[in-house]
């Protein structure tokens, strides 16, 4: 319907390297790889890009979206509003078109005419007869369906000025080893490109320009980085139960082990992956391996982590290392399995019954997913306690631009206080839970180390310094106090918070994990309004004391997190005795990554209250 284009006299806002493209598709229609190709093309043009996959818990038929933020300024969080919508899903086309900002664009399949009510007068329509083009050009039914996606990517290349060579390069990389698929894919790209070039004035005012911002950067998802981090961190055993959004952690570990963990001499495997019958068994296997001196992990999410509670208590009390990756999703219960949340902070910090506490690490980038995964094994072995790496669906399942991964070849795994047979011979008496070094961290032995020294009985029931069963309350309390001391010592081994200069402002922000993606954008935007804030990013739990100092040196600290109940704020109050009046929660819990716009709005709305606090002496 060419008249739609010519009749629209819309004033389009020119935007270069700073806009949002959203793809609305039907799940299972083969759109994922085409959309990914688009994002990767932007990345290869040297422009910072962050794709966000907003997908259903479904294999085929339900709506799915792929939102690509392009930002020369490296704002890689989500941004509200869509500049260009690729509207490929009839079920959602109304809301998708409504989501486009005035002056924006809608690319749609014009093989079927657009319903009148969907026509807005403040946006530009880019009709492409995708279905008709594919019917004419391809014989096989599957190809006709699949290549619609590739054709619109080709059209986008013309509209947005994507270097066509970048796209053909991507196709060649993607189908390496399946060469006969390369030509039809390139043909489909060309068809789209040609149609757009011939029927529209290309490029649009909304366009891309090659940049140099991605030097030394990679585009990788957090779960892949975790899997790779486990390989580098020396994990040999992965036991798991499939659960979205954690599944791809073990997929990645498996993929890299098959390449990197085959013994060159024998061809045998230096790893084992066990798909367990449930999450209880998954963590039980990892704990059994940790007890016996091998590095083992499991990966799960809310429902699975709930099932692991009893075992986490056992590992805490009997002091067995184990690493758990919690790729958080929306709870409670089944919640929204394919949406993101930071909703497990409290339940993981004190996982299991009785007085417990767990070590938590909070990566905020894919690079940190790699680093914290490897570090988690050292920390867990050093402290002889579980370490839970708190990622989330947003970080785990979406690709993001981050610094390339680096490994220090001089690094030696820290297996912690493990006594060898020789060391056992040298000491007078071994006591498994004795605090020899006054740091709360006892010494342990692996089974089979020494013929008659160093054996002990591991138990989740109360025990004394020599691991013997006891019902003596004082002895029990002594062990509990020693474990509490161990968690004080933990602060020497877990990552420090990242703190900006703290005397810049009377206002502060505390946040962790994927919330970080919005922070720079908030700071820059508020700076333009004359408001400055100091920042503190938490990387681990238990909390370092300088977090309390940060809070105390500001009149008000925004605690920004992605859950309903302000769990991080609760933890700050419980652990650091932080003053409620000094903390102001900014929350987001709709299952989609928090945006800078949301945070900024909340901060600006709180300003009247803030004015009042100015009269209060600091």
């Amino acid at each position, binding site marked *: 319907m060419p008249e739609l284009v010519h009749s629209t006299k819309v004033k389009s806002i020119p935007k270069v390297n700073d806009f949002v493209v959203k793809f609305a598709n039907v799940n299972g229609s083969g759109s994922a790889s085409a959309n990914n190709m688009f994002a990767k093309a932007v990345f290869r043009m040297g422009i910072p890009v962050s794709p966000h996959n907003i997908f259903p818990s479904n294999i085929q038929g339900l709506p799915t979206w792929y939102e690509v933020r392009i930002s020369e300024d490296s704002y890689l969080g989500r941004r509200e509003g869509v500049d260009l919508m690729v509207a490929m899903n009839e079920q959602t086309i109304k809301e998708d078109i409504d989501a486009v900002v005035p002056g924006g664009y809608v690319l749609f399949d014009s093989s079927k005419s657009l319903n009148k009510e969907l026509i807005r007068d403040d946006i530009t329509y880019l009709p492409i007869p995708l279905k008709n083009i594919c019917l004419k050009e391809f014989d096989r039914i599957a190809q006709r369906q699949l290549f619609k996606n590739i054709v619109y990517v080709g059209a986008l290349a013309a509209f947005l000025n994507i270097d066509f060579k970048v796209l053909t390069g991507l196709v060649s990389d993607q189908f390496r080893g399946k060469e006969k698929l390369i030509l039809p894919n390139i043909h489909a790209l060309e068809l789209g490109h040609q149609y757009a070039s011939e029927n529209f004035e290309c490029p649009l005012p909304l366009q891309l320009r090659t940049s140099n911002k991605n030097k030394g950067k990679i585009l990788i998802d957090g779960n892949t980085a975790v899997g790779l981090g486990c390989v580098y961190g*020396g994990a040999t055993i992965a036991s798991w139960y499939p659960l979205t959004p954690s599944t791809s952690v073990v997929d990645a570990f498996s993929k890299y082990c098959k390449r990197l963990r085959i013994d060159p001499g024998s061809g045998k495997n230096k790893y*084992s992956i066990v798909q367990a019958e449930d999450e209880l*068994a998954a963590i039980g*296997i990892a704990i*059994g391996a940790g007890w016996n001196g*091998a590095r083992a992990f499991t990966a799960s999410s809310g429902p699975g982590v709930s099932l692991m509670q009893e075992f986490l208590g056992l590992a805490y009390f009997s002091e067995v290392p184990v690493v758990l990756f919690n790729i958080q999703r929306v709870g409670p219960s089944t919640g929204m399995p394919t949406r993101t949340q930071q909703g497990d902070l409290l339940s993981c910090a004190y996982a299991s019954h009785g007085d417990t506490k767990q070590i938590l690490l909070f990566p905020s980038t894919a690079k940190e997913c790699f680093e914290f995964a490897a570090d988690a094994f050292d920390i867990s072995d050093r402290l002889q306690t579980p370490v839970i790496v708190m990622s989330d669906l947003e970080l785990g399942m979406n690709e993001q631009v981050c610094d390339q*991964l680096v490994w220090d*070849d001089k690094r030696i795994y820290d297996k912690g206080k493990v006594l060898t047979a020789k060391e056992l011979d040298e000491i007078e008496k071994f006591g498994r839970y004795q605090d020899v070094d006054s740091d709360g961290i006892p010494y342990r032995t692996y089974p089979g180390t020494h013929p008659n020294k160093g054996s002990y009985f591991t138990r*989740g029931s109360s025990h004394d310094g020599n691991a013997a069963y006891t019902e003596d309350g004082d002895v029990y309390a002594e062990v509990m106090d020693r474990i509490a001391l161990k968690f004080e010592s933990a602060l020497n081994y877990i990552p420090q918070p990242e703190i900006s200069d703290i005397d810049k402002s009377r206002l502060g922000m505390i946040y962790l994990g994927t919330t970080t993606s919005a922070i720079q954008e908030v700071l820059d935007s508020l700076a333009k309004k004359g408001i400055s804030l100091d920042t503190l990013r938490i990387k681990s739990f238990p909390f370092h004391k300088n977090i309390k100092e940060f809070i105390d040196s500001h009149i008000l600290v925004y605690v920004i997190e992605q859950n309903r109940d302000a769990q991080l704020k609760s933890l700050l109050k419980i652990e650091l005795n932080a003053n409620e009046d000094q903390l102001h929660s900014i929350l987001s819990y709709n299952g989609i990554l928090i945006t800078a716009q949301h945070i900024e709005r909340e901060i600006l709305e709180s300003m009247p209250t803030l004015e009042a606090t100015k009269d209060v002496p600091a």
Partner: protein
Amino acid sequence: MSYISKPKFQHPDLEENEIGLTRRDYEGTLTTLCGGCGHDSISAAIIQAAAEMSLEPHNVAKISGIGCSSKIPSYFLSKSHGFNSVHGRMPSVATGANLANKDLYYVGISGDGDSASIGLGQFCHIVRRRINMLYIVANNGTYGLTKGQLSATADLGSKTKSGEESLYDNIDMATLAIELGASFVARSFSGDKQQLIPLLQAGLTHKGFAFIDVISPCVTFNNTDFSTHGYKNTWENYISLSQVDFVPMRKEITTSYEPGKEKEITLHDGSVIHLHKTETNYDPYDKENALHHINQHKKKGEIATGLLYINQSASDLHELQDTVDKPFNRLNNHDLCPGNKVLRGINETFR
């Protein structure tokens, strides 16, 4: 009795085994179970079995769940590492431990509550995974520590001490193990040391998943005339499908056996099990036959015991997964970390 420490006295003439250890070296702490508990006989049988085999105690890892049965590992092999884990989850802990170090002997001790109820899922899956270990269920048909509730192995119609009758069919751990692919399945009775000890030895030596269901009466809560797991009923209805002798690899076979009723089973390390079949048509290599025999005896109210099923050529998990010979817990940085040069190459795949 836990406040009484075990006397260290040792008889000067106590016999030493091939590695110079006496029976005392295989003992554990003093039992805290009730006097006459079947479980204590299991500890004693394990002590004797291990001592006779000259096992090095530190090369054994003992793993259990929760319950009276799961206390047993405290009462034998104090020079071995032990792990008393959580209720019903011993199989997963044993799986992980075994994966970490394939060179140790693993003895899992569980009970009928632990393995047939709360841990039934884990039991089924450890059988499927063919972990190289000896898995013992001390089966008394009751929950002892919580004072006598019926367990899932209690036979239909059997009664607790308080008179509660089991309304449900029981779970037979041995037939379950056979069906799920265990490569060594036996049943015995804590009161029959002569049968239990060679079975324990064969089970320890067997490569693959060895399971022994040991009827072990609870003297306090389930030893009445109408309980099928008590001493009286077990002795009266006890059918031994075969008498068992275990001959370790190192020992010369000197005994002679009656031809025809004799079956010789050679294990992977050259040790030999001699079966003196009391039922001539019994074939321990035949799964269907084994299940048939067990069920036939059950119909008559009898308990078929002995070595019920064996397959010496089954693979264990390490073989299935083709893992390296060196135990995982001895692999170091050099073995495991691909290094930065490889990582640079991996980075290139993400551009």
